[in-house]
């Protein structure tokens, strides 16, 4: 067991990433349950003072994005990319291990401190009012996580472009390879801005600089620009690996070749370019003038056709196939449905006047959770079930897997579709308590019940995975899902595994 912790082989580091991702998903999900249980009724029930609540949702947000989505995506990437580009390992195995082992350090910093200034730490609150070492710990934790994801993406780019098998053209590699390549390039372009913003925020807190501190003549809106320039592409960085995984699973389970490989690649490249043109739609409410709002609206709308092409590609691939609805396929199709709702909501969001309705309200909470919990987590869980025989050599229990899927699908739909309407009724985001009025109470209760159902689904998921990893029946390694097609090359794994 100890050799896994010190190994640099891509499957071991991939396994470490996946385990860390799942652990973060569970404890982050626990925080989400606490939040939803607190909001079941107006007034304070299980959390005594607002500060604790604010620290819980900040840590929930930060943890889910940086410690569940990114690590799991690079975990699956670490596992599959070397196999897909037919190279023995990642380009730099040691760098791969270093990039992983920075994450637990960042995770410890973020989790032990539990800062209270929301996951994007807007000044001047994060400078003047945010408390104690928790804020500085958060800043350093996120800086380390940013650095680790930059190192990881460099490793992926070099592996895909340079270490690819010479007679395997890039246009013949699987679309998951394209997804990882595009994501890594976007990370390299997007993250430096935020690294700078973090250092400036830290020196502002020390009082030696006044970049964003209004009392010293700084402008808090500058931070928001720096932040969102990184983080709008970052939300696409979260989504693209999941889309790549969906491209991996849908053709296999439909027993039919992919509808159009070119359309997938074009959509990926188009999205990666257009992603950088729409960051300030998060800032419509900070008093931008009309022409600026229009440009960013156009930038945002330009990103929609790319996602629409992906949806079309998937449905066209499923058309005419013999689809086997094992758990992986159900998760991916569930993710596809929720992806559509998220996209439709996004289009409404990007319309400038509607920002008066939706900005910083529960509509936005529902909208982005449909992405992160709907598309991305469902695609991840689908891929996790599909990779299960590859990782453990055993099969998970199929019926429990489907029950998990239905619990999660119903739970997620209940929570986040209701929250859209909650937002329209004007309930602001990040509030410890809401106006005790009948419609708001009912909708909060529906989404809290949905949260409990999702919690049950997640618990069942972990039970299924842990039990069958130890005691599941051994899988037929050539074709574990009876799809009549060659499964991944199991022998590529290190023997000590």
């Amino acid at each position, binding site marked *: 067991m100890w050799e896994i912790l010190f190994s640099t082989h891509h499957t071991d580091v991939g396994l470490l990433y996946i385990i860390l991702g799942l652990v973060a998903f569970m404890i982050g999900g626990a925080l989400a349950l606490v939040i939803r249980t607190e909001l079941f009724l107006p007034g304070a029930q299980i959390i005594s003072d*607002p500060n604790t609540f604010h620290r819980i949702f900040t840590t929930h947000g930060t943890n889910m994005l940086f410690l569940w989505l990114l690590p799991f995506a690079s975990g699956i990437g670490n596992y599959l990319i070397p196999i897909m580009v037919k190279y023995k390992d990642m380009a730099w195995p040691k760098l791969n291990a270093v990039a992983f082992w920075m994450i637990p350090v960042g995770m410890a910093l973020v989790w032990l401190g539990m800062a209270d200034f929301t996951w994007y730490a807007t000044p001047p609150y994060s400078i003047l009012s945010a408390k104690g070492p928790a804020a500085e710990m958060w800043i350093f934790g996120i800086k380390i996580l940013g650095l680790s994801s930059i190192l990881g993406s460099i490793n992926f780019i070099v592996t895909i472009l340079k270490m690819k098998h010479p007679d395997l053209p890039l246009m013949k590699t699987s679309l998951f390879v394209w997804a990882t390549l595009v994501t890594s390039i976007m990370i390299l372009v997007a993250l430096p801005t935020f690294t700078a913003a973090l250092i400036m925020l830290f020196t502002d807190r020390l009082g030696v600089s006044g970049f964003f501190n209004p009392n010293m003549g700084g402008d*808090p809106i500058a931070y928001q620009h720096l932040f969102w320039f990184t983080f709008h592409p970052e939300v696409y960085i979260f989504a693209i690996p999941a889309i790549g995984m969906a491209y991996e699973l849908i053709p296999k389970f439909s027993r039919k070749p992919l*509808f*159009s490989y070119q359309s997938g690649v074009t959509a990926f490249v188009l999205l990666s370019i257009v992603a950088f043109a729409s960051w300030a739609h998060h800032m419509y*409410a900070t008093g931008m003038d009309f022409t600026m709002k229009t440009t960013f609206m156009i930038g945002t*709308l330009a990103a929609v*056709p790319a996602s629409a092409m992906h949806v079309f590609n998937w449905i066209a691939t499923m058309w005419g196939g013999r689809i086997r609805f094992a758990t992986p396929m159900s998760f991916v199709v569930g993710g596809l449905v929720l992806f559509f709702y998220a996209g439709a909501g996004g289009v409404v969001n990007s319309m400038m006047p509607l920002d008066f309705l939706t900005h910083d309200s529960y509509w936005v909470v529902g909208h982005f959770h449909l992405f992160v919990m709907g598309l991305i987590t469902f695609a991840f869980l689908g891929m996790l079930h599909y990779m299960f025989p590859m990782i453990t050599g055993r099969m998970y229990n199929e019926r429990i897997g489907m029950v998990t899927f239905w619990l999660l699908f119903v739970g997620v739909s209940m929570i986040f579709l209701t929250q859209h309407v909650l937002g329209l009724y004007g309930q602001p985001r990040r509030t410890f308590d809401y*106006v005790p009025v009948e419609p708001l109470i009912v909708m909060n209760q529906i989404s809290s019940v949905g949260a409990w159902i999702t919690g049950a689904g997640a618990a069942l998921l972990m039970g299924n995975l842990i039990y069958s990893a130890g005691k599941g029946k051994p899988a037929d390694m050539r074709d574990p899902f009876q799809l009549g097609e060659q499964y991944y090359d199991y022998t590529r794994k290190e023997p000590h595994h």
Partner: protein
Amino acid sequence: MGHAMIEWIYVGVVVMLLVYLGAAAWDVERFLDHPPKDSKVIKVTGQQWLWTFEHEDGTREIGELHLQEGVPYKFEVTSRDVNHAFNIPDLTVLIDAVPGRINTVWVMPDATGEYLIQCREYCGFSHYQMRAKLFVEEGVSNVSAPIETQDIPVVLPATKAAVVSN
């Protein structure tokens, strides 16, 4: 390759819809963007966990704001310490209050009653309680241009009752 023509038709339809929605949004935002000429100015100052208002004639109000129906108002919103956001859900008014900067938003209340004002940007300890009351009373409308009214619900049920109950 599958016959890709359907895909082009699909993408074409999607793009046309987006262009239509973008144009519609642009058309509405055009009017929302700048206040009518003769609108009264109200200085709104947010600070950690309460709103203060100052009318043109200097009267200051804390936690309450009295406006007149049919009179366009231009809010000049700023903050004393951290970011807040001045938001009247029922009149779709929302603008961030950023310290060291004055943002403007305008509205012409078209129905009397009591509305909820709340803070829409996270601002710390009692952000969830940072609310104020807006009373819209009868007023002589000084608006020259014709007003178009549609039967959109005057006040969303939730927020109106909210003000009374808390």
